[in-house]
């Protein structure tokens, strides 16, 4: 499960966040120390002193390069794992279409469609714990399919398909958590969708019921 969108976010964030915070605290403490220690007192003077220590700079640049290399390796590995997982294929497939200003979810294998309208917020229904493959497109401008809880978004374009995968772990109905992240005009902020995560058994039942309704 570690190669899900959530898992990969945690893997990278859990290194970047403490490191970033640590560097910030280190700089603040160094600055406070320097300001107290070398604050001007009394006579105005020019203390002189060394203004170049190239061996120190070179060693420091080497250290920074090692840190950068470490971050790059971590990030690229995580990103490669995520993309490999995306390519692995899933049983449940959803075609996502963005349109100003609503979403449409179609399950091509199940014959189910949920099309949002001005009065109806569409719901993305998915099984818990199983990967779901998404294929995205747009009928007009660029939109971006974002579920903050899954730590992932992907842009959808007209005349072009993008694809990705998500795995939803916790069952439940989340009202309006799905969002459009790419600015798309007048009612960009209203472009929401619900996410309904069902147990695999309940999802199969839902799919049968909805499929029958759609078939009649």
């Amino acid at each position, binding site marked *: 499960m570690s190669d899900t*969108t959530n898992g990969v*976010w945690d893997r*990278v964030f859990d290194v*970047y966040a403490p490191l*970033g915070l640590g*560097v*910030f605290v280190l*700089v603040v403490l160094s*600055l406070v120390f*320097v300001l107290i220690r*070398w*604050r*001007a*007192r009394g006579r*105005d*003077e*020019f*203390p*002189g*002193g060394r*203004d*170049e220590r*190239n061996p120190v*700079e070179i060693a*420091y*640049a080497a250290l*920074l390069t090692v*840190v*950068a290399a470490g*971050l*790059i390796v971590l*990030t*690229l590995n*995580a*990103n490669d794992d*995520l993309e490999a997982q995306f390519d692995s294929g899933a049983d449940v497939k959803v075609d996502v279409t963005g349109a100003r200003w609503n979403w449409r979810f179609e399950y091509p294998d199940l014959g189910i469609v949920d099309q949002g309208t001005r009065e109806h917020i569409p719901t993305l229904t998915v099984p818990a714990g199983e990967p779901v493959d998404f294929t995205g497109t747009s009928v*007009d*401008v*660029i939109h*971006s399919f*974002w579920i*903050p809880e899954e*730590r*992932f*978004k*992907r*842009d959808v*374009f*007209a005349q072009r398909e993008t*694809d*990705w995968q998500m795995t939803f772990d916790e069952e439940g109905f989340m009202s309006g*958590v799905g969002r459009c*992240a*790419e*600015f798309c*005009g*007048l009612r*960009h*902020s*209203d472009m929401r969708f619900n996410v309904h995560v069902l147990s695999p058994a309940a999802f199969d039942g839902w799919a049968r019921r909805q499929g029958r309704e759609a078939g009649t």
Partner: protein
Amino acid sequence: MSGATAVLRNGSASIVDALTGTDHKRIGLATTATAFAFFLIGGSLALLMRSELASPGMDIVSEGTYNELFTIHGSTMFFLFAAPAAVAIGVYMVPLQLGASGIAWPRLALLGYWLLAAGGVIMYAGFLTAHGAATFGWTAYYPLSDSNETPGMGADFWIVAVVLATTAVLLQAVCVLATIVRRRAPGMSLLRMPLFAWSEVVTCFMVVASFPVLIVTMILLFLDRQGVGIFTGSGGAVTYQHLFWFYGHPVVYVVFFPLVGVVGEVIATFSRRRFFGFKPTVLSLLVFSAISMSVWAHHMFTTQAVANNYFSTTSTLLLVPAGIEYFAFLATMVGGRIRLGAPMLFALGFVLLFLIGGLTGIFIGSPPLDYNVHDTYFVVAHFHYTVFGGTVFGLFAAIYYWFPKLTGRMLDERLGRLHAVLMFVGALVTFIPMFFLGVDGMSRRVADYLPTDGLTTLNVVATVGAFTIFVSVVVFLVNVVRSLRLGEPAGPDPWKGQTLEWFADSPPPAGNFASLPPVRSHAPLLDLREDGVDPAALRRRASIPDRATVGGAS
């Protein structure tokens, strides 16, 4: 414009002289003051947005108006304020730092000023058109910016304004570069140029390399809106993004580098120390600018159309040159005699606030993190720490540092410190909550959110912060108006500066210098002091105006 004329009226010149003359100081000041006026206008738009976002529901403006506000806010801040100011302070100060009597090709620089003024007027004239001003964000992503999705003259006005304002900066950057090549004082080899002049070198390189791409892209977008069909193919949307960000990423360093130079000089001067690691810092600026020409597609990680791993690698590598610069800032203070004057407070504010922007920049350079926070308030917070914490704090450091040189009068120190502290607190209170808003699900450029989203409290905090910044700017404006009339006379060198501009009178006369000291390093006045020579005494001794032999720079 009112800011420009108010400052200029104080000098002996008439307004007509001030706006048509070829003196680089008048051109630089007029451009900077005009850019600053646009900063005030763009900031007012931000206050309107923050007021709207303080509570759920559309309370103050409509969604359409909100979209005009954020589009023109961002466009103003980049095209009309930050980029023009970044180069215009070079138009004013680079010739003085080089010991030159003027700028190369001053009429080209003057044309730049007028193009900027025209561009600003045209962009704001968009509000008067039938469909209002442009509503597609400062990035004008295609196809949102095509003639179907965004009809109306306001969008066309916006494109014309961007072309004019961007050309303005390009022209002035060429003049600054030519000045650096041709007009350095005798003895001033390239590595004896001050840090600020060096920061303008890398800035102007990037302007020359990237700004023409935006100008052409805008012309293509204009043609597309006339039905020519430039970006209409299936790859058009992504192609537009490549072209825009090939300009759009370099520009964020264009508005940053000159302030690295300013802050470095302020820190050195207020620590009474020679800037530490001058050569490594110059090298790091060059490396920084070179790498940052190849990071643009980190704005496009979520498009699934670019080599994410490549652009992530180049973006992350930027921490190396940035780290060298931070080391230099701190090491310069070590062993110094640090004075916390207002310019120094703004410089330290720059160091701390830009650090937040830089560190979070490493986060969003990582695709797995960017997939979540891209196009959210996390990114809004990040880049405000770079352009507000960096550019704006750096620019205020420059204003407090050089105001005595420009006007001959000191700014009030207590009001200056009050401004610095209020603005620093405001920058934290406004933008820190936005990191959390972004991770909590607030998309960028939304006019509204739901009461049930749980975003209200942090939005209220951010709005309080924005009005704290507003108060701090009022304090600054009061200080300027008061000090222009009542400020203490500054004399040529109130801070005991290290570079040649402090050898000229305040304000410098036409032709700038009556004489020049010898230039043996990047800090010629500090050389004199360390040799026990008072620069003021040298000025008096050499005050016989014999430019041909003593000045040599004209």
